[in-house]
């Protein structure tokens, strides 16, 4: 034992000891990452979404959305409902633009039955569709301010959305859940005075857009918080299957209202698809703002030459959809929303697959949140604009 001790150089021993001490010190100094659960109950998640973020200081190393806290099983529920009953379910998917949820399902059923709504019904459908888009996205614009700390814009958004909701309520009887679309047309015609009232409201909404552009989008703090934050390049956006304004903000000129031939009135009027080359949070918000304005113009034009005639095609009293499969998707406020309806010739669908926009839109969250700061998580989530009902449908 003594011989081995003498063999080891004392200097070498002290070197090893110093190394060990250094190593221990390094271990002590090395900061541990922190896992932050954003949600399920969190004001920024519009419901019960949970973002698991692993942080290094304030920087996100890894983030993952965890959804399913609000699963409502609408796909399964449609199998035990008749076709007319399904609209009452599906307009709860994206609860802010609910009429727009009914349309693709009804169109899919109509496609299977090979009937088409009369022109007046198509026109009114398109008007209500755009109105629900305006109601939805104008609230987004206000909510954007709240997420960034400006508390005033949201009240302006609520104020002006109320006018649109009143219009929807006047026509359909329901503020949030109209349940107005029927296979072969609509439940009723427009009420008296709807057209004049709508023109006035559309003007108010355009004023609201100008207001938001001045108050929020022109603000330097807003711009510094959103420009260059959460950039999604074109190819990544396409790979993750983004749709709607999130895709258009990445510079992809893609809008199902224009690119598809559906029995709707969009291709009868003159309007523009807005895109933005940047792909950052600002671009996404900006594109949505322009879309609200464009929607008001669409509605105005549709009101100009709304055809007369019935609003309901001839359909049997008891609706049985012939056997077959149909896929119809439309450009909903949140993005592409589609229904794949499989019918076995019964009163209700055999199977329905709902492709909701938000579910695909938040799939990019792990990619886009990597390396951002904690405050930017909120900005990016707000600009991606999802609705929980649309994720956990």
């Amino acid at each position, binding site marked *: 034992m003594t011989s081995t001790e003498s063999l080891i150089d004392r200097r070498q021993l002290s070197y090893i000891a110093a190394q060990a001490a250094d190593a221990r010190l390094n271990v002590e100094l090395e900061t541990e990452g922190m896992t932050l659960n954003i949600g399920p109950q969190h004001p920024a998640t519009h419901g019960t979404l949970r973002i698991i973020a692993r942080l290094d200081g304030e920087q996100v190393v890894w983030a993952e959305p965890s959804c399913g806290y609000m699963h409502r099983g609408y796909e399964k529920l449609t199998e035990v409902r008749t076709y007319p009953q399904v609209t009452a379910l599906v307009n709860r998917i994206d609860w802010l633009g609910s009429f727009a949820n009914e349309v693709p399902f009804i169109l899919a059923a109509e496609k299977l039955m090979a009937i088409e709504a009369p022109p007046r019904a198509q026109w009114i459908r398109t008007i209500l569709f755009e109105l629900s888009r305006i109601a939805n996205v104008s609230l987004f614009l206000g909510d954007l301010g709240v997420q960034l700390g*400006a508390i*005033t814009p949201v*009240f*302006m958004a609520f104020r002006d959305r109320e006018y649109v909701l009143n219009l929807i309520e006047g026509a359909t009887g329901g503020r949030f859940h109209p349940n107005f679309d029927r296979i072969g047309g609509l439940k009723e015609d427009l009420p008296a005075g709807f057209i004049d009232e709508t023109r006035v409201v559309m003007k108010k909404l355009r004023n609201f857009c100008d207001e938001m552009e001045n108050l*929020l989008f022109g*603000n330097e703090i*807003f711009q510094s918080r959103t420009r260059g934050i959460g950039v999604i390049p074109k190819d990544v956006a396409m790979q993750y299957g983004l749709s709607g304004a999130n895709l258009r903000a990445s510079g992809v000129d893609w809008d199902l209202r224009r690119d598809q031939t559906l029995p709707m009135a969009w291709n009868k009027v003159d309007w523009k698809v807005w895109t933005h080359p940047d792909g950052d949070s600002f671009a996404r918000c900006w594109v949505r703002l322009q879309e609200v304005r464009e929607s008001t113009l669409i509605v105005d034009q549709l009101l100009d030459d709304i055809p007369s005639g019935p609003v309901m095609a001839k359909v049997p009293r008891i609706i049985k959809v012939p056997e077959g499969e149909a896929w119809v998707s439309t450009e909903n406020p949140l993005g592409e929303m589609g229904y794949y309806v499989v019918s076995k010739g019964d009163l209700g669908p055999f199977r329905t697959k709902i492709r909701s926009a938000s579910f695909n839109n938040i799939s990019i969250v792990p990619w886009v949140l990597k390396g951002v*700061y904690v405050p930017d998580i909120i900005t990016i989530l707000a600009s991606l604009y999802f609705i929980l009902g649309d994720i956990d449908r």
Partner: protein
Amino acid sequence: MSASLLAADLPYWAQALLRVLGGVVAVLLPAGTIVYVFLFKMMSFMQSRLGPMEAGPYGSMQLFAEVGKWLQKEDITPERADRFIFKIAPLVVLMSTFLLVAVVPFGPDAWFTNFEAGVFYMLAVSSVSVLGILIAGWASANKYSLLGGLRAAGQLIAYELPMVLAVIGVIIQAGTMNLQDIVFAQNAGSMFGWDGLGNPYILTQFVGFIIFMIAVQAELTQTPFDMPIAESELVSGYMTEYSGFRFLTFFIAEFATAGVFSLIASVLFLGGWGIPFAWFGWDTMDSVDNWMNVVGPLIMVTKMMLLSFIIMWVRFSYPRFREDQLQRFAWKVLVPVSLVNIMITAILKVAF
């Protein structure tokens, strides 16, 4: 000092009692007024709604209802919290407010303490609230609170510096650090020989005033510098775990500090309690009439409301900075500008 109506003839304990009561009034009254006038009413009018209307005429009793509500709430301490520190944190924050109000002069004799290093003391005790916020964030044993507390510490320390530097311009111009003397220097002063308005430093120290108000906004963690609180993100940051009376203490401290900082800003830049002394032919502090002890506080409250209005106006209309952006703003914009301001003030002081 002029013949003291109040202080000289009373025994020491009565003076002390009066000062404590006066301090409580001077903290709670601005807090209540600001909360009702700005937080409840002005914010509502800006947001196209009415605000509280039920409790009392135009909801003026709403504040008492709120206080009653908060007092009834359960006082929750998180299980893993550092209990003692968790409990004293709101008091530390409120203490900073009380210490601040101690040096604010409200009239020729209406002051709590009047000593030479008033500005120095004011800047020193205003940073005590950082400690309270930091320990509140730490002791809550909550990740959100911790993030909020750390952000607050970084931000408040960063904005302390521009605040100090902005005040130095005033000190150079007045040649004193006594707040009472600063008030005197502004009201007895003259602009190019014309003394009709005195010489409020907002005119000569305009840059300093702006920097001071920005720094105050940040010290109060009001929007656009409310990253430590960030309701939509950190869910109120360091205040997340507080409820009941302790939350109320934070709440009072927040708005009372807004009021006290407005008072201090009006002392430093707007002439404080004084009206231009030339109007009444006063030329020394002793010659100021005694009725100024009554009018002075009213003038101070008016000026406080004016400055709080600006603070709240900005608060309700702006989005918030990210914390790296606000640090950059403090170190790269405010500090250099205030240094240049000090240099120019010093040169002009020597030249004239």
